[in-house]
Structure formats: C-alpha cells, structure tokens
C-alpha cells in the first residue's frame, strides 16, 4: 500500500517478546477500507491469542476535515462483544505517523512491559518502573525518560493493573471512550501502555486533487451551525443540559480541538488556578481536560459542586477508571462525599449496572448535535443513524463527535477522498456491507 499509509502491520507477541511486520495489502483495503474494518479482520485472524488491535483509518492524519481518529479494538470483558474505542486528541494521528497503520498485541507478558513505537521501530520495554504508578505519573515518566514532551500515550492506571472492569484506557492524561474495561485487558497482559512518536510521511496519489477536495469540503463544513460554538458548554446546551453547562462554566479555562477537527470539543477546567488566566500557570497540574460531557452530567446528578465533581473526575483520570461509571455507582450506593468515593475506588463494582452493548463508544451523543440530519423523532431510525455515522468515523478515521455535527461529511465524500488520495476504488456496496458488519447488523 503506497498512499495515505505506511503500508505496514506490526504484530507484537508479548508471550514470546517477539515483534514482526506484515505488509498491508491493497486488496485488504479495497475490501475492508481501514480503521475498525481492518481491525475486525485482524482481531478475527488472531482471536485465539486475546488480541488488542490498534488501527488508523485510511484518511487519518490527512487534511480531510476532522481526520483525527485511530481505533482500539478488543473483546470487552464487560459485554463479551468485540468493541471499538476511539483514540482522538493528537494520539490518533501520532500512531499513523509512527510507521505502522495497524498494531496487533497478542498474548501476555510475564513481567510488566510497555510498547515504545517510534519511526518504524517497535520496542517491548521494561515497564517495572511505571507499574503501580498512576496514569499521569506514567505519561510524565515516559516523556521525561525518552526526552520528548510530544510523545502520545495509551496508558492504564491502577484500575487496569488490578483488573477492574471499570478501568479505562487513557489518552496521555485524559479520558477516552473506553467503557468496556479495555484497560483491564492491558492489565492482564501486564502491558502498562503504548508510547508513540512518529515523524513519518504519507504519500498522496494525487496531492493537488486531494488537497483541493479537502479544502472544498472544509469551506462547506465551515458554514455549518457548529460555527461560533465551542467546547463542552455548547455541547451540553445542545443536549438540553443547560444546568450542567452553567454549573461548570465558572471553571472553564479554554476549549481545544483534536487534530484537524473544526469543533473544539474538549474543555479544560482550572481547579487550582484562576480559570481566566491567560498566561502560563505556575502550578504544574492546575486542572484537567474534559473529553466527554457524561462524567460531568453524572457527577452533577450526585449533587456534587462543580469543583468537587471536577476533582473527582481528575482522581478518576489518574486512577484510570471511567468517571461516569464511578459517579453512577456512587449514586447507586448513596455515596455523597467526594473523599469517600475517592477512597473506595479500588472496591467499586459494576454489579447491576447495565453495560453499553453497541460496538462504538457512548462518549459521542446519540443524536445529531447542532445540525439537522432529518432523523429526529423516530427512536429506531435515530439509533440506526447514529450507528452508521459512527461506523463511517471508525472506518475512515474521522472524528466521531464531529460526524454528528456535520452532514457535509458524507460517505461519498470519504470514498472520493480515498480514491483521489490512494487510487483505491471503494464501491458503495462494499462500504454498506462493512458498515452493517461492524454495526453488528449481520
């Protein structure tokens, strides 16, 4: 595979400490496109070895709007289904520029390890120095030890190490869409995480054509109703959660975007500095980045102050546990004080809580946001619409939140971008079949 790709699949066997590379065949892309499509194929090829698959979309890391996404695929210990976790922020594209489009991690290591993937090289490194450390300490340690603050990480905290099915894989320091206990699979493999840094280059078959088409799409996307809106505040308002938006607003510092995503969907709150500060803060850890509205909504429902809610979420992020589930379980168990919840994190249990069964993360609202997709009102139709939009995101490598805001980014525009960028023709039938398969409709 010559274009929009490094053309390589990395296979890591933790049991034997061996790594090998396979060619990414163009034929596989024409049939299964990329992202969750190829992840599923790789998962099934190695399913006897308890694989974790990390894969980039065919458009990930390009100038196609919102092309930020890589996808982590595994069998959830919570649902026993194969599910796909979005990897956004800047980590999704860092993986694509590391020299591999896909990574398959097999088996379990006898001792703690982490994977260090950089510029086409993959090392299984000793993880004993970070085993037992929290998520923030671990990312800090890797960045410090490898001397590069731009290293991106997928990492677990103590919750994953001890096998909690509430554990969440974190992206650098922040929450991901993992609601399936993927972090506990890392823990069982004695895999503390994956550190990534890549300076790669993606060739384009028709560079001018691809960039012109991306520019044209961006121009049309920029006239959309998301324009002028930003962050979790406007997202919460669009979900009818004005009370939550206003409650957390006094703590909001700035909003930021994942790679090449027009909407700044992430919101940083300052807890230990003045949120209006417009210079570098003195303290090293003044707050946290909120990547989803749902932890906040659940924490407000518990009756916490916004400050306590954000402190609780910060503790969850450090411990590597799903903040929304922690808040929901605390409500179920009638726990009211943040300190009590924080001190009981290692004994929280899911029992009786309904797991999330669809294959894509519920961190993205299950309804159109800002834009009109013509699907409101019909519950079955809405669910189908959501699954299909998410499937497109997870296959092509487009931000799953932005795809529920931007009707301009159609399946046809993605097929066309792949054709111009790589020369590979994908038929609508192929795409429809793949979408049905990964939505679990087959």
């Amino acid at each position, binding site marked *: 595979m010559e274009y*929009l790709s490094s053309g390589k699949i990395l296979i890591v066997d933790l049991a034997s400490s061996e790594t090998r590379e396979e060619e990414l065949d163009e034929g596989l892309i024409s049939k299964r496109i990329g992202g969750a499509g190829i992840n599923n194929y790789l998962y099934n090829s190695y399913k006897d070895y308890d694989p974790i698959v990390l894969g980039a979309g065919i458009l990930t*890391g*390009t*100038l196609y*709007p919102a092309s930020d996404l890589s996808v982590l695929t595994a069998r959830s210990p919570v649902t026993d289904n194969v599910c796909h976790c979005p990897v956004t922020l*800047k980590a999704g594209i860092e993986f694509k*520029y590391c020299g591999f489009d896909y990574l398959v991690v097999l088996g379990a290591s006898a001792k703690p390890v982490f994977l260090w993937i950089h510029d086409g090289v993959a090392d299984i490194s000793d993880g004993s120095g970070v085993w037992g450390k929290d998520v*923030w300490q671990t990312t800090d340690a890797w960045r410090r030890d490898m001397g*590069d*603050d*731009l290293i991106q990480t997928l990492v677990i905290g103590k919750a994953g190490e001890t096998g909690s099915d509430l554990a969440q894989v974190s992206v*650098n*320091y922040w929450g991901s869409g993992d609601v399936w206990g993927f972090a506990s699979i890392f823990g069982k493999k004695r895999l503390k995480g994956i550190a990534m840094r890549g*300076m*790669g*280059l*993606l*060739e*384009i078959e028709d*560079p001018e054509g691809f*960039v*012109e088409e*991306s*520019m044209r799409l*961006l121009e049309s*996307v*920029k006239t959309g109703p998301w324009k002028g809106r*930003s962050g979790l505040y406007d997202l919460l308002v669009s979900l009818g959660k004005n009370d939550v938006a206003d409650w957390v607003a006094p703590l909001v*510092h*700035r*909003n*930021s*975007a*994942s*790679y*090449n*995503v*027009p909407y*700044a969907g992430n919101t*940083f709150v*300052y807890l230990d500095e003045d949120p209006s500060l*417009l*210079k*570098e*803060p003195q*303290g*090293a*850890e*003044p*707050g946290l*980045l909120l990547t989803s509205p749902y932890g906040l909504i659940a924490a407000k429902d518990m009756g916490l102050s916004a400050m306590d809610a954000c402190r609780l979420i910060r503790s969850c992020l450090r411990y590597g546990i799903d903040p929304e589930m922690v808040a929901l379980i605390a409500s179920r168990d009638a726990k009211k004080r943040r300190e009590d919840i924080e001190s009981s994190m290692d004994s929280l249990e899911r029992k009786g809580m309904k797991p999330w069964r669809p294959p894509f993360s519920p961190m993205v609202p299950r309804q159109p946001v800002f834009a009109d997709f013509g699907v409101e009102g019909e519950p079955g139709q809405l669910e189908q619409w959501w699954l299909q939009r998410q499937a497109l995101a997870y296959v092509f490598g487009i931000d799953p939140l932005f795809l529920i805001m931007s009707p301009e980014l159609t399946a046809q525009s993605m097929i066309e971008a792949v054709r111009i960028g790589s020369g590979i023709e994908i038929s609508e039938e192929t795409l429809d079949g793949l979408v049905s398969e990964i939505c679990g409709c087959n």
Partner: protein
Amino acid sequence: MGIRVDALKCTGCMACEMACGYHRDDAFALLSSCIVAYRTREKKDYFGVILKEEESLVIARPEGVEVRKIGAAGESGGDSSAKPMLLRESCDLCSGMDAGPMCVRFCPVDAIILE
C-alpha cells in the same frame, strides 16, 4: 505582508501545521512545517502557535504575540516545540501555491490571517 495568528481563537488543532507540511513536501508530514502548534505543556493547557519567518520566530500564545529575533539569546522560547523550528525553512507565504497561504486556508476557526 505576513501571517498573523490570533492565539486566543486558536484551538490547537494542528491543521495549519499539516497544511504547511503539505506545502513543503507535497505529502502529509509535519517535519518541515514552518508553522507549528505549540503543545508541549499539555497538563497546563498552555498552547498557541509558532511561526518561523526569515529573521524571527513569532510566538503566538495566550498572553500575546512575541517576536524573537533569530540569533538572540533564548530564541527557542524554552519550549521543545520551538527548537526544531530553527532548522526549518522560513515562511514563504506559500509562494507557488494557487490557493495562497495553506495555513490560512485550512485553519477551521479563522485564527490565521494574511496581513
């Protein structure tokens, strides 16, 4: 004429960096961009954009825009995002590109303008 960045509008999305990389390499890559998102202080949420011009580094960050003459002491801004910039080519306003400055065209929130 030159590129101006409004750091408070900037969302740190890196589209400008990739667009500039495309201008340099005719491919997608970040190694040669002369405009980069300044993003090494992630836990502090302190971010902006650095641009390499012929004789200076322009650092657009929340407190304002700072112009540092290349060759002056502390020219890297003390940030590892800035250090490799000194080895890169300077902004040429995308000379030869029909669409004009690519970073301006691809910034989704119009934080970059050509002045």
